[in-house]
């Protein structure tokens, strides 16, 4: 059987009906005055999971995180952590720690003191604090900077201190609010992998809030896509990308071409769709779309082939004009304007240095794809 790609081996508690949920949001609503930040949201996160909340700003993802940390109380609904209702427990008594977007390092304390702060609040004996701080400094490779103050550190170093400080207490859950937002691109990529290693090493549950889909895709076991205070889909990165639940999810994550159309015929495996201006699409796996239903067909650019002639074996092929070409080195992106006026984005890996079928601006071209290359969306 064909399957979607997965990252971690043998880790899929969400598919196991016996798995015990670790964090549960049960019909949680949060209102600020008239504004509903989180709307009747239910969500389950499992132990040791790396969970990402992904959405545009203002979608309620940060509010969700802040409710888990205890800075906000839900207007209605409840939040359970390891079976315990968190209602009314102040932030300083919750077994979760947060890494702030601004890092929130205490400017008047050295790196060492920053990391020790949480441990001191616990009343941990001084020799143990010293040991733990040294351990944390080693973990984030900042041993040489123990005596520095935050303003004497670079952005990347501050981020590491913030991380060390938030994991020093060995919280049950680590909350990360846009943890890599303030770093430049290269550092961000490095740090993504470091965070993943760290999570494996410490065996913690991570809940990360981000607006950067690449970041979420890289790091998370599962992603919750949020919009207007609601969860649109919770799934693994591969599922979110290859089997989006709705038009919103399909277009929010990655690039996509959407053909609006109607189901004209359902077959055992798939369906025949009719789009605008005589476009006909044959698909497999049409889901629960019934004949006559208004649906959308979504297909990712890299699953579309562009060629100068109609491929003989193509189940789906449409003719158009090469409208734009962007050569990116590792791949080339084509914008093809179909004869019905729709612009389709297709991308081709440049697996070889030269091509037998060169295309250029304003050439007539065919786009083609297999029946299983895209998905039918009913929402």
């Amino acid at each position, binding site marked *: 059987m064909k399957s979607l790609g997965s990252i971690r081996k043998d880790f899929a508690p969400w598919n196991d009906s016996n798995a015990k949920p670790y964090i549960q949001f049960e019909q949680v609503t949060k209102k600020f005055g008239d504004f509903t930040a989180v709307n009747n949201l239910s969500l389950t996160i499992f132990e040791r999971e790396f969970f990402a909340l992904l959405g545009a700003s203002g979608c309620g993802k940060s509010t969700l995180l802040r409710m888990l*940390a205890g800075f906000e109380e839900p207007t209605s609904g409840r939040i359970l952590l390891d079976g315990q209702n968190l209602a009314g427990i102040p*932030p300083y008594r919750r077994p979760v720690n947060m890494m702030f977007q601004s890092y*929130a390092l205490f400017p008047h304390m050295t790196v060492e003191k920053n990391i020790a*702060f949480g441990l001191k*609040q616990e009343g941990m004996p001084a020799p143990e604090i010293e040991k733990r701080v040294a351990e944390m400094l080693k973990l984030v490779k900042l041993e040489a900077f123990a005596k520095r103050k935050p*303003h004497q*550190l*670079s952005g990347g170093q501050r981020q590491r201190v913030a991380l060390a400080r938030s994991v020093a207490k060995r919280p049950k859950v680590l909350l990360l609010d846009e943890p890599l937002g303030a770093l430049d691109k290269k550092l961000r990529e490095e740090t993504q992998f470091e965070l993943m290693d760290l999570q494996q090493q410490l065996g913690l549950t991570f809940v990360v809030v981000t607006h950067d889909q690449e970041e979420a895709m890289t790091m998370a076991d599962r992603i919750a896509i949020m919009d207007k205070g609601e969860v649109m889909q919770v799934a693994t990165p591969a599922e979110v990308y290859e089997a989006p639940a709705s038009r919103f999810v399909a277009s929010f994550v990655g690039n996509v071409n959407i053909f609006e159309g109607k189901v004209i015929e359902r077959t055992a495996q798939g369906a025949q769709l009719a789009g605008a201006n005589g476009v006909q699409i044959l698909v497999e796996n049409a889901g629960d779309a019934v004949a006559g239903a208004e649906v959308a067909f979504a297909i990712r650019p890299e699953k579309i082939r562009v060629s100068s002639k109609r491929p003989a074996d193509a189940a789906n092929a449409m003719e158009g004009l090469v409208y734009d070409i962007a050569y990116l080195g590792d791949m080339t992106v084509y914008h093809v304007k179909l004869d019905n006026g729709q612009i389709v984005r297709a991308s081709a890996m440049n697996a070889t240095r030269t091509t037998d079928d060169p295309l250029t601006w304003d050439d007539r071209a065919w786009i083609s794809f297999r029946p299983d290359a895209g998905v039918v969306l009913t929402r």
Partner: protein
Amino acid sequence: MSPTWTRFNIVSVTLGFAFLYLPIVLLVIFSFNASKLVTVWGGFSTRWYVSLFQNQGLMDAAWVTIRVGLISATVATVLGTLGALALVRYTRFRGRVLFSGMIFAPLVMPDVITGLSLLLLFVAIDLDRGFATVTLAHITFTMCFVAVVVQSRLLTFDRSLEEAAMDLGAPPVRTFFQITLPVIAPAIISGWMLAFTLSLDDLVVASFTSGPGATTLPMKIYSQVRLGVTPEINAACTILIGLVTAGVIIASIVNKRREVQRLRDEQAAQRG
């Protein structure tokens, strides 16, 4: 900017500075006058400084002023800081606009009115005028200055620092004393110094609210001047000017050094 000095520039700068500093320079010069006549130069002497320190009345007044300043600045700093916290933090309580207007009103209120109304209050509640009433009055009118200084610092304070402290297990009170207070301390200190300075040179409010045995230095100087300016007063004023100048210079040097150090640290961090 071109560094050329036109004649016009020179004249305007000279006039400007003369306007600002000539009176002060004259005062300092005449404090070293050997002659008893204030406006006639009789040679250099420090005798007025000696006689100043032997003038029990002036010394008593100076001591009263310092005590009033220390106590009122300290109390005003505590109250002003609390007021600023309330105004910045609890933005949704009823009557906030009224309250914030009220805390800043004394800033623009003429001293005469502040003094007079306090006097009426003290009379009404039958409080004997003296050291306590001057101190209370000074707390009242310096508090709002502290509140303004602290409030502007709090507006730029990153609340996530407090959230981080609480998240790490510090209850609100401990968070305040270990995180908030140290971070806003420079603003509180400048608020205190402002309050202290205002208290030191206040004449009007003190005149209204003071009583027997609680004459402050500005009151003393003013009353003596009415009987004729003595070189002793010049000496007292010169000492005050010296103290203030030294304070300002030290404060700016400390500030400058800290700034330079911070820049150097940040550059080191960028490299490291």
